[in-house]
């Protein structure tokens, strides 16, 4: 339960007493400045983890610690200052009539002084490269721009953890790229841990660690390279693997030996050419 960490300790959760467990005895830790991707198909418990992390839900069994505090009814407001969330639908998370009002909303809730708010609005809009849109009405923005504003609103409160819960699922490819680039930049510049819940395998390859969820349990945990090298296990639970992983498998079947589990085209091609000398 160290500082700047999220820790799940034997957490079980169900929505009602006569309903099946959604999470079963889940334990993991997310460290400072880590980027953890959580994958698993619908109903595997991914989003429940996110909601437990900032006290939208509370577990029936086990304990959750955020930045040294135990998540409970009493601590929930302090917790939410540290854990920011961005959801899937860009149209469901706006409250302000202008971009700046919207970014201010979260800070107002935390009772920040006005001067600090003005400063933070500027700063966080700049971080997501939307500084020219301060006076815009949110409904005039594209989906990708809306999600960047949602990220700015979260950054303004200066949390230690940001959860993106399928935040790119409803965007077009361009919007998706914008968001992921923004997220990478923000994470490099600021001291914060990222938790992305996603189906997008490209996104997963960029994380530092992956948690694979299946029927409410942590099914696998490791670096993207480790996780994708056990493809058979992933297919077993109905998850897809990236194109390069599949290609690498078929190349191996042809007798090509590759030095590592490739995460992108570049790595696969490099290793393929290195392997020529061994043929």
């Amino acid at each position, binding site marked *: 339960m160290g500082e700047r960490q999220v820790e799940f300790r034997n957490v079980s959760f169900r929505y009602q007493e006569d309903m099946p467990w959604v999470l079963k005895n889940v334990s993991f830790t997310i460290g400072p400045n880590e980027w953890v991707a959580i994958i698993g*198909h619908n109903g595997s418990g991914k989003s429940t983890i996110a909601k437990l992390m900032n006290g939208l839900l509370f577990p029936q069994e086990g304990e959750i610690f955020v930045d040294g505090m135990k998540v409970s009814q009493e601590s929930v407001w302090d917790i939410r200052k540290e854990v920011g969330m961005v959801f899937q639908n860009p149209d469901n998370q706006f409250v302000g009539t202008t971009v700046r009002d919207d970014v201010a909303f979260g800070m107002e809730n935390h009772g920040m002084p006005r001067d600090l708010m003005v400063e933070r609005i500027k700063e966080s809009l700049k971080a997501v490269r939307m500084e020219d849109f301060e006076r815009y009405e949110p409904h005039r923005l594209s989906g990708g721009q809306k999600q960047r504003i949602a990220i700015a609103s979260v950054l303004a409160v200066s949390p230690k953890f940001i959860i993106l819960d399928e935040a790119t699922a409803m965007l077009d490819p*361009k919007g998706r790229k914008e968001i992921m680039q923004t997220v990478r930049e923000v994470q490099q510049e600021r001291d914060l841990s990222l938790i992305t819940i996603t189906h997008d395998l490209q996104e997963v390859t960029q994380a530092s660690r992956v948690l694979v969820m299946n029927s409410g349990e942590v099914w696998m945990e490791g670096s993207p390279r480790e996780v994708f090298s056990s493809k058979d296990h992933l297919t077993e639970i109905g998850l897809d693997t990236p194109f390069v992983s599949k290609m690498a498998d078929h190349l191996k079947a042809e007798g090509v030996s590759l030095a590592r589990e490739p995460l992108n*085209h570049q790595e696969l091609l490099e290793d393929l050419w290195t392997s020529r*000398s061994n043929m």
Partner: protein
Amino acid sequence: MDISFEHVSYIYQPNSPFEHRALNDITFSIKSGSYVAVIGHTGSGKSTLIQQLNGLLQPTEGSIQIGKYKLQAGEKTKNLRGLREQVGVVFQYPEHQLFEETVAKDIAFGPHNFGVEKMEIDRRIKEAVQATKLPDELLERSPFDLSGGQMRRVAISGVLAMNPEVLVLDEPTAGLDPRGQKDIMDMFKDLHKEKGLTTILVTHSMEDALAYADHIIILNQGEIYREGTPLEIFKQHDALEKVQLDVPEVMDFLRRAKKEYGVEIEYRGQDIAELAKELTLKVRGDSDHE
């Protein structure tokens, strides 16, 4: 049904300060029974285009022929009702349009409005839920108690129950998980074949365009930018890049292999296993010469 657009333009709020030309001089034709993907960025005119396919919008200039129906700029279209019965449109997030008390009633709403008799409606409901793989026991449930993927299937069943000859799909898999996406796309592929439909898919996914369509139309700023078979279109990497569109991953990979390592493999729709074989042969061949 054969579909053709002749010099079609569409202008929103003409002769006002907000005038906006969403489509500009569009001409193309689609043969009955083909599966066409329409690709383009947000704002390229895709939605405007498909709204004219069932007469929700009338062209400002030019004319459109859909089977025996004609939409002509400046003229009132006859028998729009008949057109709408035959062109089924699955809009984005169609589950947002569900409203009835039960799944069965929601599916029946369309055909009922068009005066289809009760026995026939019941038959069509059965057929539609079979096609969309919804279990029969859901029929008497409220559509709002279902999962997102199931709700979408209910909405699609409602369109299918109209027995359309043309199916227009506006990003039908948006927001679903990968497994749900594949299930829905495979379902449309089966329907297309079994019923001999003319299918028009609006999509951002180059992978889906490559996997399912036999013809692609790319829109850019209200005009047709490129048109052709998937293989023809996706070979034009530079042209696509110019309008910030990607190519399917497999073609991007092969292009990279050629550009950076001089290994040329022509893409003819091979699967990954075959490509791996060809790639191995090429690489081995190269090293034998050294």
